[in-house]
């Protein structure tokens, strides 16, 4: 079926509206659907992720005035925020710490909640790792308190609490 609006493309969008109990069906191509502002995208396309990343960067740029795209780069793999925007992928596990601020917004946009509630590997958290991580987080927490970054404080406190519980249950 050819799209009746442009008479050019194949009509791949089939749009059903119910107005006053009367059902009306409209068929059109994707281009015309976009022009008419009809939502055709599947959730969380690459575009959504990109726009989420951009939002994250705006937030980040308020914190870091210059060179925020090149600096910080990940100390483990060298990835910069610029690389991440270009590829849509992180470089290594450490990137989740390095780009914490930008990632928080991205994850808020594409996921249900920012905290993992599923499976834990049996050997994790190893007590040693956890204790080291707790110490790290406590350091970050005191920095955040000092700088009055209260949103971050809550995040660090939550993770410290969870880790301490895990250590105790081990």
């Amino acid at each position, binding site marked *: 079926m050819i799209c009746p609006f442009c008479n050019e493309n194949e009509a791949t969008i089939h749009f*059903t509206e119910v107005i006053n109990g009367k059902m009306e069906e409209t068929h059109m191509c994707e281009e015309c659907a976009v022009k008419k502002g009809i939502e055709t995208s599947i959730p*969380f396309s690459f575009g959504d992720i990109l726009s989420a990343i951009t939002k994250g960067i705006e937030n980040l740029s308020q914190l870091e005035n210059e060179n925020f795209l090149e600096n910080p780069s990940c100390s483990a793999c060298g990835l910069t925020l610029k690389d991440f925007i270009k590829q849509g992928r992180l470089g290594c*596990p450490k990137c989740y710490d390095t780009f914490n601020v930008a990632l928080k917004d991205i994850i808020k946009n594409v996921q249900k909640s920012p905290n*993992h509630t599923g499976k834990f590997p049996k050997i994790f958290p190893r007590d040693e790792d956890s204790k080291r991580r707790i110490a790290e987080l406590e350091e970050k927490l005191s920095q955040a308190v000092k700088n009055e970054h209260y949103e971050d404080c809550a995040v660090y406190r939550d993770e410290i609490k969870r880790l301490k519980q895990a250590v105790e249950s081990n």
Partner: protein
Amino acid sequence: MFEKMISHKPPWLVTPPTTKPIAISSRIRLARNMSDIPFPDRCTDKQREEVILRVRKAAKKTDLLKNAEILTLNSLSNVDKQFLVERHLVSPEFAQQTAPSAVIISNDETCSLMINEEDHIRMQILRSELNLEEAWEMINKFDSELEKSLPYAFSSKYGYLTACPTNVGTGLRASTMLHLPALVHEHKIGSVMSAVGKIGIAVRGLYGESSDSKGNMFQISNQITLGQDEKNIVNQLHQIVLRIIDHENKLRETLIVNKPYQIKNDVGRAYGTLKYAEILTSEEATNLLSSLLIGADLQVFDKVNRATVNELLIDIQPAHLQKMKGKELTAEERDIYRAKIIRNRL
């Protein structure tokens, strides 16, 4: 290995002759990474080789893959790679890679594990019909065996760490392949797509990311991987699939009551074309075979059985044809060979 795969149909396609499943198959995949090596995109070739070595060693210790064959990507021809894509054992992105990568496939094709795709590990379990919970139990056990010998990248906040934040957390993508001819015929598929889209479930055409579908086949999958545990994700998808199946069934019943001649006409014409055509493209053949499936399901056409049609849907794909013929074929040659195979089997 390929010879065996060609002569057998994949077990996930085999269903008892009495069932008329709208859900063709179910799949669960998990994404995992090593904590001490960068994600594949930023790995050197040497690091990628090391990942292959480690994962291979770990897989040898698991029940599912202890006797499985490992295929390194550079040892495969383009047709081999395409064959694995058509068989749903590797992703199209994986098949296009050039850096060191490998795949381990269980002998019965139920389990496959891609090494160095977007993440170090992408493992999947494929089952026939709607069997998501069973697939989850199998892959959960397999993953727990692997984790004994692999240091997974994991954080207590974000869960399993993945190259793309859209997979972080559980790293789990559950999907079901559905045959939805009545919803397509009655132009209801768009509203299904937008309704489930609002709750973080995606509907895609069978092959790839676009919403276009070949043969009225759709893949329904979860998009959210963080903030919900695995059982919840799997159960939610299961419930949604059940509702879609219910819609499809109701529409089928209405169609057969209201438009019996139109349905029989569609099925009969599809059979006629398939039975006598000399040239068939993959798209045309897939769409016509879908009509035969609905004919078999609605019992309005008794000249074909479902199993034959199901097998044909797999066998008429380009790389399958070339594997059966034993040589590379041009697009025109494939269309002629495809028509011949279909004529013979019907």
